[in-house]
């Protein structure tokens, strides 16, 4: 199979989208499902750095926006910033432990959910910032953290990243 990220990344994004829309909308804990498309952006940031994090986040966000009722482009904005931020943070630390992606995914996912809710409020949808927001952040954080090792592996394959190129492979 070709190792061109321009083919592999869309393949991964679409596969994960199908799982997201059909499987993970059913597997909810307290009504909350993991945010897989956000997780892809985070994984891209971890494995490929800022630029890839931002680009993958933009793409995965735009794709999931097509299936949401929030304005088109909102997830794209949030995910690309999250992917970029994760990529920036990753370049500054020593990548040695397996738990770094897990913790990163937890923090970045919870932060991403908060950012998304705030951004939605800014564009006029005030129904997201409620007392429940904290719970959603925590649950999405935990579920995304659990799935992070898998997502990082998928992204490392899709981006064809080797550890020597500043990437991270579990």
């Amino acid at each position, binding site marked *: 199979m070709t190792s061109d990220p321009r083919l592999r990344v869309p393949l991964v994004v679409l596969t994960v989208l199908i799982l997201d829309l059909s499987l993970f909308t059913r597997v909810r804990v307290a009504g909350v499902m993991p*945010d897989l498309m956000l997780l892809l952006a985070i994984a891209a940031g971890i494995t490929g750095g800022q630029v890839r994090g931002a680009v993958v986040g933009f793409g995965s966000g735009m794709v999931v926006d097509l299936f949401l009722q929030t304005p088109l482009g909102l997830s794209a904005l949030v995910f690309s910033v999250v992917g970029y931020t994760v990529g920036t943070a990753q370049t500054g630390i020593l990548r040695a432990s397996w738990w770094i992606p897990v913790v990163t995914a937890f923090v970045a996912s919870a932060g991403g959910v908060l950012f998304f809710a705030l951004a939605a409020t800014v564009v006029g949808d005030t129904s997201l910032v409620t007392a429940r927001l904290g719970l959603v952040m925590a649950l999405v954080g935990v579920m995304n953290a659990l799935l992070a090792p898998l997502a990082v592996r998928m992204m490392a394959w899709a981006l064809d990243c080797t550890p020597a190129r500043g990437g991270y492979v579990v």
Partner: protein
Amino acid sequence: MAVYRRSRRHRFLLVLLALTSITVITLDFRGESGGFLDGVRNGARDAFAPVQSAADSVFNPVGDFFGGLTRYGSLKAENDRLRSDLAQARSESLRQAGAERERQKLLALQNLEFAQDIPSVSARVVSNGPSNFQLTVAIDKGTDDRIAAGMPVVTGSGLVGRVVDASRSRATVMLVTDRSSNVGIRLQTSGTLAVARGGGADKSLSVDLVDLTTPLSPGEAVVTSGLQGSVFPPDLPLGRVSTAKVEPGALSQSVTVDPLVELDRMEFVKVLLWSGQP
């Protein structure tokens, strides 16, 4: 220096992506329905429909299994309750058969509004929306079956929500419990008009601006008001009053309403082909 320049270029890319997103958000806001972005969105949903249907049939048991795990206790309790309800219903149905005949005659006589036959389309609920905030479901019919945004959606037991988006073969229904949902209602006993706001998943709807003097009883039926220009036709059953209390110093009662429909376990719904007041 090279590193510095590279990180500046990276930041430029991020700004570019962010600006693109914001432009799309703006366009999506300003564009009236039927615009280019709507076309893209609907096209994607249609293109995805067959894939989703296939994946759904694979993952349906998983969802059922998971649902069973997380609510085994409540299912068992529900089973017991249903058994006793069934016995009760059997005896009641005998009594009500007579009453129903009488009611039909009265309706024919007075030509009341809720006897109006609104044409409808049945649809299967294919999935929940992939969101942790908005409460929507996707159904497997769309504009090909004359469904359009704004139409009310019901089940046998009552109001579910309304269609917010429709592509050719799919439509998205926003549930009455969504936090952005508002339903104009009438409290059946007193005839008081009010608005029920969604409170989120598995939460009751809250009703604002109910006068202090309005008599209320728990279990009282709540139906849509269907005032001029309202989103829903009149007299669709919405729910039952679960609590009504007066906070100290408040000028109105705070009332909560439990929806009649089990919104997280719907299989089929009916879309009423109704768009605004006749």
